């Protein structure tokens, strides 16, 4: 599972770009932990919520991947390789 998330982070940042991989990994990792702690944060601020958002921590990684694959398939910093027919 951690290996799979590493691949997701690399694709998110853009295959073929090292700075992209670093930034992608940071974004994916931090988003996952934000989702884990989202309810506690909301409770601290004053909005009480008890819907159990922590189960979606894995899901948010893949949701971010799918969003980036739909909007920008080459990743955040990737370069587009032209396809030869």
């Amino acid at each position, binding site marked *: 599972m951690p290996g*799979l998330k590493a*691949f*997701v982070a690399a*694709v998110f940042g853009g295959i073929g770009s090292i700075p992209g991989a670093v930034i992608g990994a940071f974004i994916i990792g931090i988003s996952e932990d934000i989702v884990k702690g989202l309810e506690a944060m909301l409770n601290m601020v004053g909005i009480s919520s008890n*819907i*159990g958002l922590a*189960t*979606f921590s*894995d*899901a948010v*990684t*893949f*949701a971010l*991947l*799918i969003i980036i*694959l*739909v909007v920008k*398939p080459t990743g955040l910093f990737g370069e587009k390789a032209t396809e030869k*027919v």
Partner: protein
Amino acid sequence: MKNVENKRGVIITACIVIFVFLFTLIAEKVAPPSWNMLFMVLKKGSIYVLIAVSMNLLNGFTGLFSLGQAGFMLLGAYTYGIFTIPVEDRASVYQYFDGGLIQFTIPVPLALILSGLVAAFFAFLIGLPVLRLKSDYLAIATLGFAEIIRAIFQWQALGPITNGSNLLRKFPVFNSTIAYFGVVGICVTIILLLINSSYGRAFKAIREDEVAAEAMGINLAKHKMLSFCISSFFAGIGGALLAMYQTSVQAAIFKSAMTYEILLIVVIGGIGSISGSIIASFLYIACSEWWLRFLDQETSLAGPQRSRFIVVMAVIFVILLVPMIIRIKKPKGKPVALYGAGAAVCGIVLGWLVYYALTGQTKIPLLRNGFRMVVFSVIIMIIVLFFSQGIMGTKELPDLFKEKKASGDAGKEVAG
């Protein structure tokens, strides 16, 4: 059957299939309880046949490498479970959610079809953004969707419908093997008919070369979506059958490891061969559940024949070891690795004999709980390394029974 060129092969295959059905039908009535393991393997094997054939349709015939089968199986299993639990049992199953939201039941055949339709509907929604991606990205995206679906079904807020992370149980199940065989047989027949139709030829064209297929007028998006939805329909029905086999449904079982098992079965059987998936599925389930069980028990050689047995084994393996080492230096036709492996095995057995001679312990080492999985993994690695086309390659079972023509006829056909 006028246009079928391989009539003999098709008839022989049909006879084999009918024989297998009749055998299970009769054997289940008369068999002693010690045959229970065989029927368990047949039931679970037939469920995996359906799912492997659906994945082969998507992966082997259309060329779309998708890893989302576990998610669609999960959808099918939950749909079947939710809609068929009898109303009087709902309060005890949904005990933390006040009896649950849905308070009616659907008859079993209808629930099976509904589970397939729900899986196909979600496949349609998933396929809209995802099917335009290339092979690796499609695999990761579908894997991601399977994980998202699993997380949604474990969510406590959806508890009144799905029972959160607790089990769904007490729904009606099929008890006899022939019922599983019947459902799986109908589904595999439908897939066979689909592959031998014009849609099937379009799928194979997309697999070979997408650009050429599009140039010939095949609507890529429509055919890819059709293949994806039909494959998920049958994966959903397979998930419902798996729920019946295990008599309980829980989201935590349908991890990506299950998808990798199905992918393994498809690869071992041969990508693009339905009969290969069927044979490989039964072999995989038999090996992992039944045939290798003896490796998990600690055994020791005991009794009066012990010393004779040891001496005979020592002599045999020394005799085998010497030519192996000679052949490594001068291999004759077979690859060197084969002789290397043979020498290694002889060396290991001789090493154990020396250990026995020195200490007098007769327990065969390594045979303890879990060794079965090591041997199983080694067998799979050998198959994938040396038989990379799979058991059947791209051939189907009727092709094995083709009539052999004399070579003179072929020459006359070409000339005339």
